[in-house]
């Protein structure tokens, strides 16, 4: 190693994001549905059972039934007034769009992108009885991202909703197609050694999330968090592999980032998951 760049690479590689555990403040949870008041309260009860891992009597649970908003503006006004730290709802509010599983519905689109709070998306009551998903509990929480390293907020939320002694699966899937495309480009540049790239890039891509997960495990143990951290770091095709992993690990709830600072729409990698995995509760940050 005789040049500056080589040593800089070594030092940059040694510079790892350290997970900082932080308590997620949760004073008010708002449950939004398009149901009649009584059914809406039952739905809230189901959500509370599902989230019994929160286990905090100080949390105020508010219910917003279908009669209290008729437009996106009205919903946002209600959310702004109640100022919850978490909103729970489901897809295709005030719509029969749930019959055609190709969208989130306009209300959820706005809640996830405009509202300030994370949104827990539950299965639609017409697709799954609320009591059914309530029984899932949050024993197996999977935090998913394509850029896990340094995402403390994602992990802290996942820890927050996990039951005591539950399993926290920290998942990072590196897109195989992106990787192959990168190698293909490198193979066409004479100045770059393709074999060296093939040998070194993939391990480095997978090393960074692994290092971060190790830090999460150490810091959570140190903080006395009652979760078992499991690592799932692999190459793959995101949607298909997440579907497989959810089944393999019998996941109860997914936690994922959906906001993208560069665009108004939902994060491109999150959208297909949120649209297609309809039977699985998801916490969207």
């Amino acid at each position, binding site marked *: *190693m*005789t040049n500056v760049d080589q*040593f*800089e690479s*070594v*030092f940059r590689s*040694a*510079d*790892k994001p*350290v997970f900082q555990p932080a308590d997620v403040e949760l004073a008010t949870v708002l449950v939004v549905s398009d149901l009649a008041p009584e059914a809406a309260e039952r739905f809230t009860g189901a959500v509370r059972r599902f989230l019994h891992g929160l286990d905090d009597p100080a949390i105020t649970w508010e219910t917003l039934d279908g009669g209290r908003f008729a437009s996106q503006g009205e919903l946002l006004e209600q959310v702004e007034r109640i100022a919850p730290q978490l909103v729970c709802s489901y897809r295709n509010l005030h719509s029969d769009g749930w019959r055609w599983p190709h969208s989130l519905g306009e209300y959820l689109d706005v809640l996830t992108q405009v509202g300030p709070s994370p949104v827990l998306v539950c299965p639609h009551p017409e697709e799954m009885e609320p009591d059914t998903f309530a029984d899932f509990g949050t024993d197996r929480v999977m935090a998913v991202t394509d850029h896990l390293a340094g995402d403390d907020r994602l992990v802290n939320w996942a820890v927050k909703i996990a039951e005591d002694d539950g399993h926290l699966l920290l998942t990072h899937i590196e897109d195989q197609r992106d990787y192959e495309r990168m190698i293909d480009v490198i193979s066409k540049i004479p100045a770059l050694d393709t074999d060296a790239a093939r040998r070194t890039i993939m391990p480095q891509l997978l090393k960074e999330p692994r290092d971060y997960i190790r830090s999460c495990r150490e810091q959570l143990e140190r903080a006395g968090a009652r979760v078992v951290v499991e690592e799932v770091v692999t190459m793959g095709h995101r949607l298909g592999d997440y579907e497989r992993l959810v089944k393999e690990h019998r996941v109860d709830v997914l936690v994922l980032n959906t906001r993208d600072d560069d665009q108004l729409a939902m994060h491109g990698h999150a959208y297909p998951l949120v649209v297609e995995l309809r039977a699985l509760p998801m916490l969207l940050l």
Partner: protein
Amino acid sequence: MPPTTLLLASGGGHEVGLSITLVFTAVLLGLIACLALEEKIHAKKSIIAGVFAIVALMMGIVFHVLPGTAEVHVFAETLTIPIYIPAIDWGVIAIILGSSIFVDVTSKSGLFTWIAIKLTKASGGDPVRLLWFYGLMTVVFSAVLNNVTAMIIVGSLTGVSLRKLGRESQLLGFLLVEGLLTNIGGLLTLISSVPNIIVGTAAGISFVEFFVAAAPYVVVGTVVTIFMGARLFGIVKLGSDEERAEAAALVSGFDENDGIESRGFFVFGAVMLVAFILVIATTSVLPFVSELGMGYVALTFAVIMLARFKSSVDTFYRALDWDLLGFFAALFIVINVMEHAQVLTLIGHGLEFIIDLGDTLGTGLILIAAAAFSSVTDNIPLAAMLAKILGALGKPSDSALWWSVVFGANLGGNLTPIGSASTLVAVTIMHKQGLRISFAGFVVKALPYALVQIALATLYVLLVLA
């Protein structure tokens, strides 16, 4: 014009006309000028020196100042070899080649990055402690490895760590101080810099003698430089507990074990580094080894380390600084031709005039002149030329004049960005980090440090070593 007496290492001699000597002097001056303008003419040192070596050799044959071949006697056998082969100081080349490979392979063990990151974490991210730790590390690495490698390791870590700490505004101060300290650390041992190797070898100074003589100055020079750096660049301690906690949390993210691919090789590298220093330090007193010299030791350790990578040693061969090695070889040839052409004798007469000014004035002037000369061109030809001249003048190894050359040649590199390879590396890293610093800008910033260092060195040589 009366002919001047030729000085030859072997003690033999023949006569050369002064006009011919002056022609060769012009060639030498041309080489020095081209090396000084290396950046302007966009040519590597090895090519510049190589061209002058070829021209000088041909001129030497044409003007009959040297033979085309030399005879080497090995017991009863006599070997006839081209004159440019014994012209090269292969002992020096072997030391540089061997230690370069040794350091390069050892760095693969992760040892140096481990030390660097450990110190970063120990600083807790406090800028003043970081400056002291990095400064001391630069000096030690320059002394044990070489000043270019030291600057590369510490400079690249400085860029990464200060950015992590959000202290990019202090990058210039850190990198400048580190660059200047490489040449202080380069004074510590006989193998720390090329001028040391050349002058020390020519003077017959042992590794231990060199260390004992240079160490007190290195300690003082280091402390003064770091202290000045902190003051002039306004590098102060963190003020509050929150700042300290935040900085400590940031540097705690560095993993010193990340660069260690094999724990066994890491330990082996550490053991071999200690062994290398010990054997080099005691080469002059070790039976059998003393006959083969430090070059043999350096090459032996290089080969032992390379054995770990026996199937991929070509990677390390490619990483060698062939420009530097080619430059040395060509330079030795030029110096040898100049020696035969009486150019060194001519310069020696000038030098004698300075030396005759007295122990104090003469020795001091040699140091200052060497520093001034080294600041504008490579200090290696200067060291090689002065070493030859002092040797020919019969100066004993305990003469303070040798130390004037050593201190002047090393510290002169701190006056300008082109004064030494390590300050050039420091400037390269500054540019890489987006810091725009011109030649004049560097001189303005470095001048106070360099003047203090040279003044301290002059006092030290005159009061302690003379």
